[in-house]
């Protein structure tokens, strides 16, 4: 099992210190990312998706901190590495693509500079010419003519910039690319092309991609597995087919029902009642209970365990478990290589 898993997150908590107190944007979350898969991470805005993505690179700073958690990446716990070692891993093994391609490139550097800098930062011995050749090959592969490599970010379109961002992650053959809402600011046609490209790259380079998005359609289109987050907790994880075909967690069900469908007969779109809770004062028990149509007494009192409900489909819901009926937790189940 350990060979199969590239990145194993265990009990990760990310805290933001605010004036109102510590806010846990990611609270005790465990997740496995398998080699070569595209894993979609979906959830409402503010549920901690992006924070989770950044924490995988230990990119948090300022008010954010990781009080507990293990980040097992390719056989080592990144949390145990000194933070000074992280730049060596970022870019080389873990890449990230940000939400807004308009602002995620340095306006005073050309595309070539971006790429050669990335390459030479990790492989100082590579000559300028060699780095350039690699950069040209790479952008050419991503569908940007190599003549344009000398251009600056403002001269490129949004889709091209996003491809440049991807190329930065690919420049050193990162094993895992965390794409944080990469298509949010792109129009649907560019988005579709970009998703096709992601899929192609995943197959061609054996890339593993964590796709953070709030767009269920995007997940359904390209993801192998789906993880659903709600209020800093993991609600449900499973293969895309199973989760979309047979969602277990009431939140996932509500989420899927909320997606507009052209074939929908209902006059009005399904709306989930209530609002996402404040993470400063999360509800007791299951965090979804104030909005849950199936809420029971126990839901308000105790937090459900995140465990298997059907094979590889995991969910945190009292509907599928009884008090004291906890399965062995994931933590013990997983052996690490």
């Amino acid at each position, binding site marked *: 099992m350990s060979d199969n898993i590239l990145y194993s997150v265990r009990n990760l908590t990310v805290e933001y210190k605010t004036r109102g107190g510590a806010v846990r944007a990611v609270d005790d979350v465990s997740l496995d990312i398998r080699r070569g898969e595209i894993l979609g991470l979906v959830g409402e805005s503010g549920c901690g998706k992006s924070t989770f993505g950044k924490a995988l690179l230990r990119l948090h700073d300022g008010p954010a901190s990781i009080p507990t958690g293990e980040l097992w990446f390719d056989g080592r716990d990144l949390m145990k590495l000194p933070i000074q070692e992280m730049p060596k891993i970022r*870019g080389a093994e873990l890449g*990230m693509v*940000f939400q807004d391609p308009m*602002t*995620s490139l340095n306006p005073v550097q050309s595309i070539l500079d971006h790429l050669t*800098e990335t390459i030479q930062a*990790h492989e100082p011995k590579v000559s300028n010419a060699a780095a350039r050749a690699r950069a040209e090959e790479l952008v050419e592969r991503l569908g940007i003519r190599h003549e344009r490599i000398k251009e600056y970010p403002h001269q490129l379109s949004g889709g091209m910039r996003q491809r440049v*961002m991807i190329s930065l992650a690919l420049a050193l053959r990162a094993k895992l690319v965390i794409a944080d809402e990469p298509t949010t600011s792109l129009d649907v046609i560019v988005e579709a092309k970009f998703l096709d490209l992601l899929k192609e790259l995943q197959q061609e380079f054996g890339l593993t991609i964590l796709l953070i998005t709030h767009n269920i359609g995007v997940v359904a289109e390209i993801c192998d597995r789906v993880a659903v987050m709600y209020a800093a907790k993991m609600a449900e994880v499973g293969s895309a087919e199973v989760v979309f075909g047979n969602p277990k967690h009431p939140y996932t069900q509500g989420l899927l029902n909320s997606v507009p469908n052209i074939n929908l007969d209902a006059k009005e779109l399904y709306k989930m009642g209530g609002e996402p809770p404040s993470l400063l004062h999360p509800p007791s028990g299951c965090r979804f209970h104030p909005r849950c149509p199936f809420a029971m007494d126990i839901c308000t009192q105790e937090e459900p365990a995140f465990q298997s409900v059907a094979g590889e489909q995991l969910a945190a819901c009292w509907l599928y478990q009884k008090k004291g009926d906890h399965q062995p937790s994931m933590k013990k189940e997983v052996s690490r290589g």
Partner: protein
Amino acid sequence: MANLKEKLPVTPPEGTTWEVELKQVGFVRKLLMARRWYGADWWFVAVSGVFVLIFIIVALVPGLFAPYSPDALVGPRFLAPGAYADLSVLIVPANSSVNELKDLAVPENGDRPTMAVVQGESTAGDLNTQAQNIDEQLKDQAGGLRLRPVFDRYTSLADALQAVVNGTDRAAVVQQKEFANIASKYPSLREASSLTGAKVAGGFIMGTNDIGQDVFSRLLWGTRIALIIGFTSSLLSLFLGVPLGLLAGFIGGMFDRLLSLVMDSLYAFPGLILAIAITAVLGPSMLNIIIAIAVLYIPTYYRIVRGQTLTVKEEVYVEAARSIGARRTEILARYIFPNVIPSVAIIFSVNVADAILTGAGLSFLGLGLPPTIADWGIDLARGQRFIQSAWWMITFPGLAILLVVLSFTLMGEGLTEIFNPKLRDR
């Protein structure tokens, strides 16, 4: 159908024609064509740029343009701009063979020539100086001739001239203008030559000051001092303020708070007063002025760079840089610094102008340079005492300061407008 097509306005592919053109031309043409785009700002920058260039050239080689040395006493005192000096001329009998002062020289033991001068005129001084000069030269030559005139002082011009007519004196030294007025009354006399050099006869465009120095020459040499003070102190505060601002913005925390406190305290002082205090402690010298002014302007750079750094630090591309493994130093040098520096370049220009003004202010108060140096502030202070009698002494250095400050400021402001169009709407 064809008719309708003709009526449709032809729209260029993107933007107006000149915008399209602007994208296709080279740097120089672009610079020239930009005036259509930037309008008044372009002209401000162009005109003030030319002025700045002129000032810089003059500051580099003032000797090429200045007719005299700034320290030389080249003319009479308080000569108004364009006015001609009263020349001292040698008056001799018409039949005399004497043409120059030198011709009056006699052998070592001969009778010393007696010469008539008018009491209370500068002519006696001129004669004395010139005669001594000639005597020195003659002493070195082998001829054994000496020129040591005996002065006969008369109360009026008429008396002096009469003495020459009578033969009491060999010659007279009088003011040219006054002699010209009454020359017709003395047909037996003629004007031989002027005692002082022909150059001085041309007058001075900006007049002379209280000790007979050329105001124009001092003005040109003063440009050098002004620009040295302006540039070096601005550069010094730039080299200190920019790194401090970068570090404070980037590191943040306690370091930032402490440094900002110090900088804000500096900023809170009225500028000139702080500079006065610093020079008063350090003593007047070029270096100390530069240090005082540099200290004054460090907070300007610090605050702007710190603010910009705080903004740029939060940009996604900085986070993206971290996500591809860039180190902190790399982020600072390659991501933050280049994005911060344009605003520094612009305030630099305005800052130079300000520094020149402060430097002149310090010199004006006597806290700047030693009074022997040709400096606008010193000339202003000097001219201020004679503002009623010799307006030119204070006016021209004042105008020079105005022009230099205006040029640098307009250039800086114009460049801001051009490079930072966001500011326009404000």
